[in-house]
């Protein structure tokens, strides 16, 4: 199993990404061996070392969701409960991304089921759609509107297409890495991505701010 490249080669690493580098001396072999022995300090170290990676992957897919922290923890619980399935500790980062993708997909599907149940059970709190976005106070209104629009469109996509689109377009993953994270073939990911982009394009006209962002060429990130 090859390691997933977290940052595309043509994209400069931001200062924040250095946080993903391990700050502990424990290598992944020792870490996994400790976890398999039931060592709580190894579990805590795993969390500290890879919390950033997991959280960022989940944010790419879910946004700053109200259940983000729970999903991060859920990802680590799943990982700690199945370390015996990890044959190569070197593949730990890509394995954690895979588990993050599964946890995020499960949350999206659970939301959709919940939404349907609420629809049939009468008017209830429909606010919990996972589209709660947090952004900095200095973000301008246009960025806020574009982000909200992007999130609204993402929420309308099927879970598999949403995950493929988010990992490829937001996280900048290579297609083969997206396929590995989703546990499917490259051809399948290409199809999902094509469908997601077609659905995304079909809805952008409803959101002028997002439409404008998409039409812009070049420019710096705000």
């Amino acid at each position, binding site marked *: 199993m090859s390691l997933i490249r977290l940052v595309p080669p043509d*994209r400069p690493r*931001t*200062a*924040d*990404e250095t*946080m993903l580098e391990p700050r502990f001396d424990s290598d992944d072999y020792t870490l996994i061996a400790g*976890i398999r022995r*039931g*060592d*709580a*300090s*190894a*579990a*805590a*170290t*795993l*969390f*500290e070392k890879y*919390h*950033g990676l997991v*959280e*960022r992957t989940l*944010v*790419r897919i879910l*946004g*700053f969701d109200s259940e983000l922290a729970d999903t991060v*923890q859920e990802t*680590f*619980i*799943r*990982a*700690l*409960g199945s370390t015996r399935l990890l044959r190569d500790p070197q593949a730990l980062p890509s394995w954690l991304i895979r588990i993050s993708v599964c946890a995020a997909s499960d949350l999206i599907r659970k939301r959709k089921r919940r939404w349907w149940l609420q629809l049939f059970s009468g008017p209830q709190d429909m606010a919990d759609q996972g589209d709660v976005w*947090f*952004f*900095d106070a200095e*973000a301008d209104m246009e*960025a806020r509107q*574009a*982000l909200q629009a*992007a999130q609204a469109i993402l929420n309308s996509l099927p879970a598999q297409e949403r995950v493929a*689109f988010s990992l*490829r*377009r*937001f*996280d*900048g993953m290579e297609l083969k890495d997206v396929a590995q994270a989703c546990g499917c073939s490259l051809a399948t990911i290409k199809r999902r991505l094509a469908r997601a*982009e077609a659905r*995304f394009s079909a809805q952008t006209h409803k959101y002028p701010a*997002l439409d404008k*962002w*998409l*039409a*812009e*060429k*070049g*420019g710096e*990130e*705000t």
Partner: protein
Amino acid sequence: MSRFARLGRRIAALQDRKLTAMQRNDPRPSLALGEHLLRRAHERRRQRRVSVAAVLAVAMVAGSLAAVSWMRKHDQVVLATVRAEAGQRVTASLLDIAMSFGDGSQVVLSSGSSVRTEMVGPTSASLELERGRALVHVMHTKSTHWTVHAGTYTIAVTGTRFRVDWQPEKGAFSVGVEEGSVRVSGGLIAEPLDISAGQSFALEQGGTASALVGKPGVPAPPADSVPEMPPPPSLIPSSDTDVPVQARRSVFRRSAAPSWRIEAEAGHYREAMEEAERRGFDGICRDASGADLLTLAEAARYAGRADRAEQALKAVRTRFSRGEDASMAAYLLGRIAAESRRDHSDAAHWFRTYLAERPGGRLSREAEGRLLESLAFMDRSTAREAARVYLDHYPSGPHAAFARNLLGL
């Protein structure tokens, strides 16, 4: 860079800025967090094990119920499953036994049934149902070739599910096809009979019921519910049909076979005679049909009981004096006289009787030839006269060389 890639970079940059702010404030994970995560993982694993066990248990119960339901439908409660091997005899004494084959085919033997595997291949098998009932499910492939024998009946299968019932004591045979189709031949069946899904076929004791019932696609009724119907003409030819003796053995069947006849037709002549004696040989000679008596006479002859053979044949001559069976009996009496008793005078008498009763009959050539042989032992001049007649009738017959030798040609 595509417009989606540009959009993604802008959104990711906003997300990363927020993430940085969030993570800057995160406290360093404590040992308690590690313990908490490990404990939750352990609990989750245990719950999953319990869930898997519960699902498996439910699946097993459901599977068992379905199997029992299916077996009950067919009156089957399987005690054990054995792997089929060639040359094996499996007997289901009190409870049913399933036999599994390499290609996934299965035979479920009802209690009181017995089967012998003559041959078992990757996609083929040849079984002999010695007695009782079997539910046969053969997996279909291009090379599937299955044969199930029940007494003198043969069922050819390519992929189907059917039940077969064979009671040798009663001579009762039945087949009910649930899926696919089978071809049944032998026994009392004159020509191979194709039986499709939803149809059943039964031959009961004494040949009183011989019927193909049901419509294709409709579930076959159980064997016990097959109504008595007159035999279809294609299955049982008329007794007047003019067929050779050897052919009669396989084609002409007038009634369901008594046990001695089953043994005789299986080539078990000594057992056939024992059975006939046990049942009362004289009674059989008094009551049996001409065809059965001819079979009995042949069994007696092959079992070395020429006396009993002659008794049976003379019973035919007495009881069916005008029929073909009587003429056949005359011919066979001639053979026994010549071969067993060396009484050539008596043999010549019987061969002449046959030729007188059946001039131009199917066995005329053989009768004239045998007569020639008998006369050669008695009177050379009479034999030479008979040789001329034989050569006149059959110049290239099997006794032609013998006749020419007698004539010095």
